[in-house]
C-alpha cells in the first residue's frame, strides 16, 4: 500500500506560532519499512495521527493506495495504528484487550491472529488473564503491539512500539516482526528513538528537524536482513543518520541562539 504525503502542515489550535509539522513531502512505495527519527516534540506522532486520520491537517494532502484519503483508507481497515502510550482497556484482561477487536471491527473483518497467538508472539502467554494495571510498562507495550499485529492491515503506523522494552526482548521481537513483515509486506511507518533498532528493521530512514518538523534527511538502508551492528555498511548508515540528526540540531540551535 503506497503512501504520498504532499506539503503537509499541521498547526494545533491555540498554537499558532509553533506549527507541529511544516511542509512535509515524501512518498513511500508499497511494502517499504520506513523508520521515522527526530528530536522529541518534532511532530512524528502528529504525522502518524494525521495519516490515521485522527486529526485533520492544516494544509497539504495525504494519499494512500493511489488516491484514497486517510479517512477512506481507515474506513476500509487498511490502516493499523499504535499509539505512543499503550492505550489498553483497564476493565479487560490482556486476552480480552485483543479479543475485543473481533467485536469492535465491522462484521467479517479478517484478523491475522487469534488473541492467544498474538499473546504468545509477544511473550505474554502467562499474562493472558492479567488486567492491564497489573502489567509492567514493557508488558503493557507488548500487549498493545500484539493487538496491532492481530489486525490484517497493509499500512502499519507504529509510534515507538519498543520504547519500553529491554534490548533482548526488543531484539527477539524485531526478528519475529521481520519474519511477519517479509512475507506480508505491509507498508510500515515506524517511529523510534533508537537508531540501532531503526537500522535493524527499516529500508529507509526519514530524519526530522526539531519543531516545526520538516524532513532533514531521507536515508536509504540498502542492507540485507538479518543485519549485524558490526557490519561496516551498517556502521556507515548509522553514521549518516547520526550526522543528519546532529547536523540539523546544530543548525537549529544556531538559528535560535
Amino acid at each position, binding site marked *: 500500500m503506497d503512501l504520498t504525503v504532499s506539503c503537509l502542515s499541521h498547526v494545533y489550535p491555540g498554537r499558532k506560532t509553533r506549527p507541529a509539522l511544516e511542509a512535509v513531502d515524501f512518498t513511500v512505495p508499497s511494502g517499504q519499512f520506513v523508520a521515522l527519527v527526530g528530536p522529541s516534540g518534532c511532530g512524528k506522532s502528529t504525522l502518524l*495521527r494525521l495519516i*490515521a486520520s*485522527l486529526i485533520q491537517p492544516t494544509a497539504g494532502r495525504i494519499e494512500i493506495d493511489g488516491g484514497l484519503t486517510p479517512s477512506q483508507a*481507515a*474506513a476500509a*481497515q487498511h*490502516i*493499523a*495504528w499504535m*499509539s505512543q*502510550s499503550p*492505550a489498553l*482497556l*483497564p*476493565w479487560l484482561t490482556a486476552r480480552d484487550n485483543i479479543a*475485543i*477487536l473481533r*467485536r*469492535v*471491527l*465491522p462484521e467479517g473483518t479478517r484478523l491475522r491472529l487469534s488473541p492467544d497467538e498474538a499473546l504468545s508472539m509477544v511473550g505474554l502467554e502467562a499474562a493472558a488473564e492479567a*488486567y*492491564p*494495571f497489573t502489567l509492567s510498562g514493557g508488558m503493557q507495550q507488548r500487549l498493545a503491539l500484539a493487538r496491532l499485529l492481530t489486525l490484517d492491515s497493509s499500512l502499519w503506523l507504529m509510534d515507538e512500539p519498543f520504547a519500553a522494552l529491554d534490548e533482548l526482548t526488543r531484539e527477539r521481537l524485531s526478528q519475529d516482526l521481520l519474519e511477519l513483515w517479509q512475507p506480508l509486506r505491509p507498508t510500515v511507518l515506524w517511529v523510534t528513538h533508537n537508531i540501532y533498532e531503526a537500522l535493524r528493521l527499516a529500508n529507509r530512514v526519514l530524519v526530522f528537524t526539531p519543531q516545526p518538523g520538516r524532513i532533514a534527511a531521507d536515508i536509504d538502508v540498502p542492507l540485507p536482513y538479518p543485519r549485524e551492528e558490526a557490519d561496516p555498511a551498517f556502521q556507515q548508515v548509522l553514521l549518516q543518520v547520526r550526522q543528519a540528526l546532529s547536523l540539523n540540531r546544530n543548525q537549529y540551535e544556531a538559528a535560535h541562539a
Partner: protein
Amino acid sequence: MKPHTPDSSARAALIIVLVFVLLWEGGVRLFSVPVYLLPAPSTILLTLAQNASMYAQATLLTVGEALAGLLLGVLAGVIIAVLLTLVPHIEAGVMSLAIMIKSTPLVAIAPLLTLWLGFGVLPKIIITALLTFFPVLVNVISGLQRVDGALLDLFRSWRASRWKLFLYLRLPSAVPYIFAALKISAPLAITGAVVAEWTGASGGLGRVMWLAYANLNLPYLFAPIVILAAIGISLYRLLAHAERRLVFWLPSSTVE
C-alpha cells in the same frame, strides 16, 4: 496506614448511628418533648414492634413500587443518555425537556396520572420513575462523555461505529458514574414511592404515614421512617459492594 476492613467500618457505622439515636432519645426525655411534636426512638420502635405485620405488608407494597419505579427511571435515564450520546445534536433540546419535566412539581402531575391510570400502583411507579430518572440521566451522560482521550483515539483508529464505541468504550467508562447515579436514585426511589402514596393510595407506607400524619400520630409517622432508612441504607450498601466488585480497575480507597 491500617487497612479499614468492611467489618471495622460497619462497627463505626453502628456506633455513629447509635450515638445519634441515643442523643435523640435523651433530648426528648430531658426536655420532655410532647409526643405529637417529636416521639422518642423508643416509642417509635415500640410502635414498630406492635404493628410489625401491618408495616411488613405496607413495606412490601412500597418497596415493590419503589424498585419498579427505580428500574423504570434508571432505564429511562440510561436510554435517554445513550440516545443523546449517539445523537448528540438533540442533547440540548432533550435535556431542556427533561429539566422541564423535572421542574414540574409532582404534586401537579400526580393527580393527572391518577385520572389517566386509575388508583392502582401504576401511577405510583411512574411518579417514582419521574423522580429517579434525572440524576441517572445527568450522571450517565457525564460518564459517557468523559472518556479517556487515548482510548477514544484507539477506537477512532479502528473506525468503530458510534454504537460499538458506545458499547465497548463509553459504557464501561461510565460505570463509576452509573453507580454514583444509582446511589443517589435508590433512596430517592423509596421517598418517591412514599410521596406517590401520600394521598389517594390504597396501601403502602406512604398511606400509613399520611394517615398517621393526618391524625398527628407521630410514632406511627416515624415508625415507617425507620423502615425506609433501613431499606435505603441496605440498598446503598448493596450498591457500594457491587461497585467495589465491578469497578475493580479504578483505585477508590480513601485510606492510605
